């Protein structure tokens, strides 16, 4: 047993995110948190989309709570599950509409992870819909969502950019739900080095409301979880690290195939970083792929590219500009650069400011 006062909120959150994973040290919180710390934990649980894991922690009696705290945790989880249900239905509608127009899809992250990775989908909360479509289908997919009342968040910088270079496009539906249409797993170099067409060669199906949806195959799903955890935000979200740990420990994929694809895509450093972050943060043994990750050393070049995605140095313009080397030929490089530097669409001031900062970060050092 552990006294709650001896643990930081960060430690408590990590324990919540790791609940149920094999090999995790059994640390029961024997007395309820005081009001201030409980409030802080609950805010972080909501932010990190961990309400299902918090309910599991409480249900397994690994954390003592007062009746009021229990009611608040239940209310947070119900809210998260209500959103998940509405998003799942929206997902079915969107996939059905795309299928009618001949657009193939692979469901990514949230809904697919909830239904395929966990014994109960109620463990995994999510706040939007993520769908992979082929680059060639992306403009039509956006058009269909806009025709249904959606609004594209950022315009295509130049005609043809979506098909060839983009990570994806975000459309907000009329009721306010976000649909992220992905062409690749990441922006910049890591996305441009991928072979997105290969993601449609295999799949794993799951049932949702009597319909069959296609998610990525297990290896590609693991790769995407790693890319999302490391490249998706400055600080990895705990639910994303849990997904990585859940898959690594379950071992339901071929590690050799994962590493072979990662090598082809120049993404071994991403996989290694994600696995290490998941095993360190959640204090779990990530199995054979964990041993591989622990023994791998990042090159200087990998560190430089990763810096554009992680921590305080994260900058979308740096990511995009550093991606130029992954664009295959001179003509395509010119198109890519032109779209980044001279977009024809109306860009917001904020976006332009980010580009200027990114440009300065890339070239500024040479003039100092």
């Amino acid at each position, binding site marked *: 047993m552990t006294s709650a006062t001896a643990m930081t909120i960060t430690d408590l959150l990590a324990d919540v995110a790791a609940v149920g994973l094999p090999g995790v040290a059994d640390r029961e919180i024997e007395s309820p948190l005081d009001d201030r710390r409980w409030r802080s934990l609950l805010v972080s649980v909501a932010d990190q989309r961990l309400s299902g894991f918090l309910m599991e922690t409480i249900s397994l009696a690994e954390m003592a709570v007062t009746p009021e705290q229990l009611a608040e945790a239940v209310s947070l989880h*119900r809210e998260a599950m*209500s959103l998940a*249900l*509405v998003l*799942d*239905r929206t997902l079915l509608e969107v996939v059905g509409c795309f299928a009618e127009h001949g657009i193939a899809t692979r469901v990514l992250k949230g809904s697919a992870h909830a239904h395929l990775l966990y014994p109960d*989908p109620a463990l995994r909360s999510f706040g939007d819909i993520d769908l992979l479509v082929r680059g060639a289908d992306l403009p039509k997919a956006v058009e269909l969502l806009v025709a249904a009342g959606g609004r594209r968040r950022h315009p295509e910088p130049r005609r043809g950019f979506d098909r060839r270079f983009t990570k994806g496009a975000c459309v907000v539906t009329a009721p306010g739900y976000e649909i992220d249409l992905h062409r690749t797993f990441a922006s910049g170099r890591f996305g441009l080095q991928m072979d997105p067409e290969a993601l449609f060669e295999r799949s794993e199906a799951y049932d949702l*409301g009597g319909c069959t949806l296609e998610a990525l195959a297990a290896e590609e799903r693991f790769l995407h979880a790693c890319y999302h955890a490391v490249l998706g935000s400055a600080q990895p979200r705990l639910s994303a690290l849990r997904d990585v740990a859940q898959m690594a420990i379950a071992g339901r994929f071929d590690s050799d195939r994962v590493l072979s694809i990662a090598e082809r895509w120049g993404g071994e450093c991403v996989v290694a970083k994600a696995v290490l972050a998941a095993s360190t943060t959640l204090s779990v043994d990530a199995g054979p792929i964990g041993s591989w990750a622990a023994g791998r050393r990042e090159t200087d070049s990998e560190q430089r590219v990763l810096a554009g995605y992680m921590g305080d140095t994260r900058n979308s313009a740096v990511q995009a500009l550093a991606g130029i080397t992954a664009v295959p030929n001179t003509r395509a490089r010119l198109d890519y650069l032109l779209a980044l530097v001279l977009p024809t669409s109306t860009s917001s001031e904020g976006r332009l400011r980010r580009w200027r900062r990114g440009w300065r970060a890339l070239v500024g050092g040479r003039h100092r």
Partner: protein
Amino acid sequence: MTNREPVFRRGHRVLWRRSYDTVLVLPPGAVSPLSLSRAGSALWDLLYDWSTADELARELGVESAHGVDAALADMVRATVVTRQE
């Protein structure tokens, strides 16, 4: 003798999630999910396959099927449970 009692099952297109001691179900076309009571959630768990109200009452350990009948009628009205004659 043929059993002519109606049988009930979860609507197979109904989306649902468990949340602690209740079940949330999203009826087709509804804006937001319904939260079943604790008893309704116990009934929902048994509705994975076709059953009569009597069979469900027996499984739940209740003497009379009246309460189960009423709950099933509500669920059928909410289009989350399918009734077959």
